[in-house]
C-alpha cells in the first residue's frame, strides 16, 4: 500500500466516524462536532494530495486547507451561537425535542 492511500483511508475513516456521530447522536452540539470532523477529513485529503500529487510548488492544497479551516471556524462559531439561541427558547439541545420553529 502506498503512503498516500494510507492517508486517504484514514481520512475516509475519519469522515465515516463524523458521519456516524452526526447521524446517531441526539445532542445538537455533538452533531456540530461530527460535521467539523467531516470537514477535517476533507482537509487531510487536501494535504495528502498536495504532498503526493504533481506540482506541489503551486501550494494549492495548502491554501485550500487554510481557507477551509477558517470557513470551518466561522461555521462553528455561528452554529454554536444558533444552538445557544435555540436553547434559550426551547430549553433543550436534544434534536428530537426541537420540533417547532416557533419560540
Amino acid at each position, binding site marked *: *500500500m*502506498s*503512503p498516500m*492511500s*494510507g492517508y*486517504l*483511508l*484514514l481520512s*475516509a*475513516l*475519519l*469522515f*465515516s*466516524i*463524523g*458521519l*456516524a*456521530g452526526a*447521524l*446517531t*447522536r*441526539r*445532542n445538537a*452540539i*455533538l452533531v456540530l*462536532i461530527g460535521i*467539523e*470532523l467531516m470537514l*477535517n477529513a476533507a*482537509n487531510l485529503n487536501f*494535504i495528502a494530495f*498536495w*504532498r*503526493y*500529487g*504533481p506540482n*506541489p*510548488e503551486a*501550494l494549492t492544497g*495548502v*491554501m485550500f*486547507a487554510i*481557507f477551509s*479551516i*477558517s*470557513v*470551518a*471556524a*466561522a461555521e*462553528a*462559531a*455561528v452554529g*454554536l*451561537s444558533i*444552538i*445557544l*439561541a435555540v436553547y*434559550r427558547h426551547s430549553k433543550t*439541545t*436534544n434534536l428530537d425535542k426541537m420540533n417547532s420553529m416557533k419560540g
Partner: protein
Amino acid sequence: MTISFLLLAAITIAGTAAAMSLRNLVHCVLALTLGLVGLAALYLQLGAQFVGFTQILVYVGAVAILAVFAIMMTRSAEPTEPHGSSSFQLSGALIAGIVFAVLAWAVSSGTKALQVQTLQPEASVNQIGVALMHGFVLPLEVIGLLLTAALIGAGVLAMDETRGAR
C-alpha cells in the same frame, strides 16, 4: 506506512471515535481535542507546518473551547442524554459503514495508477505568505469579510434580546 504514521493514525481514530461515542459531553470534547492534536501531527508529518499549527490554534485552541462553553451554557454536561432507539443507532452506524466501504473501495482502486511524488515538497511560512499576497489576495479578502460577518453574526445571535429590552 511508517510506524509514526500508524501511531498518529491510531491516536486520531481513537480520539475521534471516543468523541462520538462517550456519554458525558465534556469528555467528548476532551477526546475530540486529542483527535485533533493527532491530526495536526499528521499535517506536520506531511510537511505542511503552517496548516498543522493553524489546526492546533484554531481547532484545539478555539473551537474546542467554544464547544465546552456551549455545553456548559446549555447545561448538557450531565450524562443524561437519552440515546435514540437502538434500531436508529444501528441504521446510522450502518450508513456510515457503507460510506466508508465505498470510499475505501474508491481509494484502493483509484490510487494504483497514480504517479506518487516521493520528494518532500516544501511549504515554508515565507512561501505561504508570498502566495497569499500574490495569487490568493482575493480569497484572503473574502475570508476576512466572512470572518468579520461571522463575528458580528455570532455576537448578535448569542445576545439575549429579552434582557436588553428590560
